[in-house]
């Protein structure tokens, strides 16, 4: 039986409420409400003036309807009228209606501000409080502007009643949160601070809330509150529970005020004044001591209140982070709570320990509880407690226990609640990265994450693993191998396919040597997942495929077939279709070197904050994450530095094998690069060496023009090697001491090169020793015999040296000519390339247009073709080009190409062991001053080289 004997009975309201309660259905309820609304509306609109009681009753009904969740669009005026009633209950209902409904209606505030002002000025404290409550409940900016002026005065006026002071303090606090300018400055500040000394505990409690908020924003102004708060706290802590009468709560003296004071003190560093500081330490020790005392009551309220103060004291100890003794005591206390039967205490102990773990003084003490925490993770029945355990493990993790904690977290992940999986995944990913000593462990951990909780692995996580693998060379091969193995699982998560696709696309070559993971196997494995994947993943895989075309020319045709299929080329998804079309085209049109440039290995990512960490912070706004990072900057930097190092290594590694035509025209200076298609050298760069040669042929055209005029003599010495691409005789080298001329002839696979060394000075060269050297590889491809020469060359004289060359196999490099001689007292050293190139062994091959194109088509596999597009360096003269091509050694086939401007050539490379057919097509574009040169040969290496 509800007791309504107190207060006003509103019979009509009670009847209405019980009607609503008796409604069997939502429809019935709505019907009843609509009926009531119609009734109230007619009453409000009626001619008869309503008396206060009826108005109050109807406004109260409207309020009830509103609180049930229905919209109310009238009655506001009647409520406003009630405010000016001199009957308390009517006023009270008016205020209640307004404070519940006014939120969204600022029009109303203008109407009510007068009434509120009147009540604030009333002599009756109950009326003043009603007005203050209303201001605090609405708390809008408009309210602050209209009414704030009076409130600060009420708070400190000597004649204000305690209850009004309390309301005024909290009302001001509420207004301060929306409009900070309501707070006066100057003298007022110290008077507010002195409220901490007030006789009335309720006033102190309310004032402490206000002062804490103010001190957070203006710590200096409210600094005086520290000593007052400490002495107030000290008085409470040392008092017996009987001293404080009604402010003692279940045998705990003023727990709310204690906690508020402790929170106020957390706005400041430890007190500087030793006396205050000592007193505070005493308080804190006292609170810790009390935790060990037997409880004065079995009621949960007693232990809750006592522990609330204890936890807040521990928060302050952690905030000060300056007293190792207190920190360790706090940690031990929390350790006891970790095994408490009260779930709430276990929850809070885990939470507070999280903060302790970030203090250098207590980090080790927290680590002692690692086992208990791991156990909590396994046995707690409440997910929110397990969540705290995860947080704590994350916070207590360091290099010494990372492997164990990460593995426990991974174990737990399998059975973890769905609600916390994503966050756990983030945390595991961060820990694995942060404390990885061995990056293979990192890669394993992340792949495990994807395997165990793939759905919860957010983009950031798999982006990050890719970033790290790309930036850390030492782990790339391992990563490729591991993802390859992971992908072999019959069912694997799409995120695994993404990571696998990306990593194999970049580093698949590192495992391609193993026949079990040959390019085709890799491709088939990835493609077997393709159809099960989302559009985004399929798009990624298409990029992997085009990367494969570059990495592994042998699977080009297979992949092109896939790209060409209707599933791709006519895919309904625009992105997939576009990728398929563009990649297919790219793979057909672009020469290997263009492909290689476009699809080059990803450069290292700039080092930046882990995107995962950002995400976790965003997700949690987590204090623990920040604190944690602050403390461990040392180790983070350690790892960061390691990454930086490897980045630097990586950067230099990358810069070496990326030959630019200007730096090293043939790439001969960097062995292993020019040897295209051979095992050494990053596959990503295949073809670049060739590209430069191709450019050479035509840049040579410019040089050749210049060479017809007398050589300009001077330093630096000029190496004319490139001119010999298309001709056999000329000056190979000249400086102010020496000129080297060349006459050479080639027939079939044999060649004879005659070198003329001319001494341009009047002084004798002594100890003149020319020698020809070549790389190991070249030894099997070319045999060279040199005739010895006289060790001296007189001034102005010329000596001859004959070099016989036999081409055994197709080759790429040219042999090197090393010269050493003494001129004056100084030893001169010269190194240059001997003008022996593969095209010297071309045998002209005449064929009809039909034949040409038949063969051209035969040689259509990607690895047989090399193409380069380049800009003309001189006028595009047809005759000059013809001469060049003839000089190149091929037969020029006239009238073969449908476009008369194009040049077509054919030749066979004659070597002792093999003959390699070679077709050439040069398409000048006069308008753009560009040439496109395409070469197709029956041997992959040759076409790459010759291009």
């Amino acid at each position, binding site marked *: 039986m*509800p007791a309504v004997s107190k207060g006003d009975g509103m019979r009509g309201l009670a009847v209405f409420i019980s009607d609503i309660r008796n409604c069997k259905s939502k429809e019935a309820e709505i019907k009843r409400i609509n009926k009531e609304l119609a009734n109230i509306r007619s009453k409000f609109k009626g001619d008869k003036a309503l008396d206060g009681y009826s108005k109050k009753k109807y406004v109260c009904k409207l309020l009830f309807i509103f609180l049930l969740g229905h919209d109310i669009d009238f009655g506001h005026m009647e409520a406003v009228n009630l405010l000016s009633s001199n009957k308390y*209950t009517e006023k009270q209902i008016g205020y209640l209606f307004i404070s519940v409904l006014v939120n969204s209606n600022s029009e109303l505030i203008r109407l009510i501000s007068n009434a509120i002002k009147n009540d604030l000025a009333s002599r009756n404290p109950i009326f003043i409080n009603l007005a203050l409550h209303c201001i605090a409940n609405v708390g809008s900016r408009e309210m602050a502007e209209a009414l704030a002026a009076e409130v600060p005065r009420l708070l400190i006026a000597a004649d204000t009643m305690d*209850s009004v002071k309390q309301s005024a303090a909290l009302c001001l606090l509420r207004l301060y949160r929306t409009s900070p300018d309501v707070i006066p400055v100057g003298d007022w500040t110290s008077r507010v601070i002195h409220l901490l000394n007030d006789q009335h505990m309720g006033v102190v409690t309310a004032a402490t809330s206000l002062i804490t908020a103010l001190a957070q924003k203006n710590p200096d102004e409210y600094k005086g509150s520290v000593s007052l708060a400490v002495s107030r706290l000290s008085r409470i802590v040392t008092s017996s529970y009987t001293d404080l009468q009604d402010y003692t*709560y279940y045998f705990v003296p003023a727990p709310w005020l204690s906690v508020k004071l402790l929170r106020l003190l957390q706005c400041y560093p430890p007190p500087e004044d030793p006396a205050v500081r000592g007193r505070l330490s005493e308080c804190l020790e006292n609170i810790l001591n009390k935790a060990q005392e037997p409880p004065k009551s079995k009621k949960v309220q007693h232990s809750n209140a006592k522990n609330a103060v204890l936890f807040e004291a521990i928060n302050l100890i952690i905030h000060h982070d300056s007293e190792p003794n207190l920190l360790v005591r706090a940690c031990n206390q929390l350790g006891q709570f970790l095994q408490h039967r009260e779930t709430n205490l276990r929850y809070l102990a885990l939470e507070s320990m999280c903060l302790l773990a970030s203090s250098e003084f207590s980090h080790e003490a927290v680590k002692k509880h690692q086992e208990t925490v791991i156990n909590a993770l396994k046995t707690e*029945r409440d997910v929110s407690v397990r969540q705290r355990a995860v947080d704590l493990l994350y916070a207590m993790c360091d290099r010494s226990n990372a492997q164990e904690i990460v593995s426990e977290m991974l174990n737990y992940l399998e059975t973890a609640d769905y609600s916390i999986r994503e966050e756990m995944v983030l945390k595991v990913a961060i820990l694995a990265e942060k404390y990885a000593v061995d990056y293979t462990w990192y890669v394993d951990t992340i792949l495990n994450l994807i395997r165990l909780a793939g759905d919860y692995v957010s983009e950031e996580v798999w982006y990050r693993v890719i970033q790290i693998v790309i930036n850390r060379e030492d782990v790339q091969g391992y990563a490729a191998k591991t993802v390859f193995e992971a992908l072999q699982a019959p069912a694997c998560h799409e995120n695994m396919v993404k990571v696998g696709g990306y990593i194999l696309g970049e580093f698949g070559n590192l495992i391609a040597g193993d026949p079990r993971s040959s390019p085709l196997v890799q491709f088939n494995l990835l493609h077997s997942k393709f159809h099960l994947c989302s559009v985004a993943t399929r798009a990624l895989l298409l990029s992997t495929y085009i990367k494969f075309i570059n990495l592994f020319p042998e699977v080009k045709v297979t992949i092109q077939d896939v790209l060409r299929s209707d599933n791709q080329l006519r895919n309904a998804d625009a992105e997939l279709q576009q990728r398929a079309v563009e990649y297919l085209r790219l793979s057909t049109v672009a020469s290997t070197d263009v492909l290689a440039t476009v699809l080059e290995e990803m450069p290292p990512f700039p080092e930046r904050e882990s995107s995962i960490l950002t995400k976790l912070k965003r997700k949690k706004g987590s204090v623990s994450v920040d604190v944690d990072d602050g403390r461990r900057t040392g180790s983070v930097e350690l790892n960061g530095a390691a990454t930086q190092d490897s980045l630097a290594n990586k950067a230099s590694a990358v810069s070496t094998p990326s030959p630019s035509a200007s730096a090293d025209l043939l790439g001969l200076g960097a062995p292993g690069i020019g040897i295209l298609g051979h095992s050494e050298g990053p596959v990503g760069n295949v073809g670049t060496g060739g590209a430069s040669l191709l450019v050479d042929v035509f840049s040579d055209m410019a040089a050749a023009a210049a060479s017809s005029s007398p050589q300009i003599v001077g330093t630096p010495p000029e190496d004319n090697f490139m001119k010999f691409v298309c001709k056999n005789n000329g000056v190979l080298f000249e400086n102010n001491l020496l000129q080297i001329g060349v006459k050479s002839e080639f027939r079939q696979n044999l060649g004879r090169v005659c070198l003329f060394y001319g001494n341009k000075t009047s002084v004798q060269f002594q100890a003149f020793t020319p020698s020809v050297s070549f790389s190991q590889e070249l030894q099997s491809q070319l045999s060279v015999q040199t005739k010895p020469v006289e060790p001296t060359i007189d001034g102005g004289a010329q000596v001859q040296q004959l070099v016989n060359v036999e081409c055994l196999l197709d080759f790429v490099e040219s042999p090197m000519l090393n010269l050493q001689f003494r001129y004056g007292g100084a030893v001169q050293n010269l190194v240059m390339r001997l003008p022996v190139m593969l095209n010297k062994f071309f045998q002209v091959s005449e064929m009809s247009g039909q034949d040409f194109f038949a063969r051209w088509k035969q040689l259509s596999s990607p690895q047989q073709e090399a193409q380069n597009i380049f800009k003309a360096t001189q006028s595009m003269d047809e005759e000059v080009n013809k001469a060049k091509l003839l000089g190149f050694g091929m037969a020029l086939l006239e009238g073969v190409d449908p476009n008369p401007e194009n040049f077509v050539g054919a030749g066979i490379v004659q070597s002792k062991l093999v003959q390699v057919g070679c077709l050439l097509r040069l398409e000048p574009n006069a308008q753009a001053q560009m040439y496109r040169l395409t070469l197709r040969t029956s041997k992959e290496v040759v076409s790459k080289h010759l291009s």
Partner: protein
Amino acid sequence: MMQFMLLFSRQGKLRLQKWYFAIYEREKKKIVRELVAIILARKPKMSSFLEWRDLKIVYKRYASLYFCCAVATQDNELLTLEIVHRYVELLDKYFGSVCELDIIFNFEKAYFILDEFLLGGELQETSKKDVLKAIEQADQLQEDNETATRNVLEEMGLT
């Protein structure tokens, strides 16, 4: 600072809602639905605290009613539980062995008592005596005004 307080029944019916920050009705309803579902799904032995959005939810069940508060993360959870308890004590003292029906039929009283106890999301007065004194004074004021105060519900035979 307390952000809001909700009282709802085991059936998920909202009995009282107090918001200490400005918020649209639509959003209120969404929050209520969400939290009622979360809390009703929890088992008795579970902790009374849970993280929700960037707030902390502290809840406790008294008979058929759930009291649920949202506080800032740095607020003291145990003491929030005791705020709830003190409010229940106040209601209990005022109504005399309070039950859900008291709060339904006298919702305005429940709001008035809450306003005396908590203002703007902060504790105004923790002394039970003082809060009740304030309420009684107000009741006194009105009883002076009212001529006929009857126990309406008794008359209607409602329990």
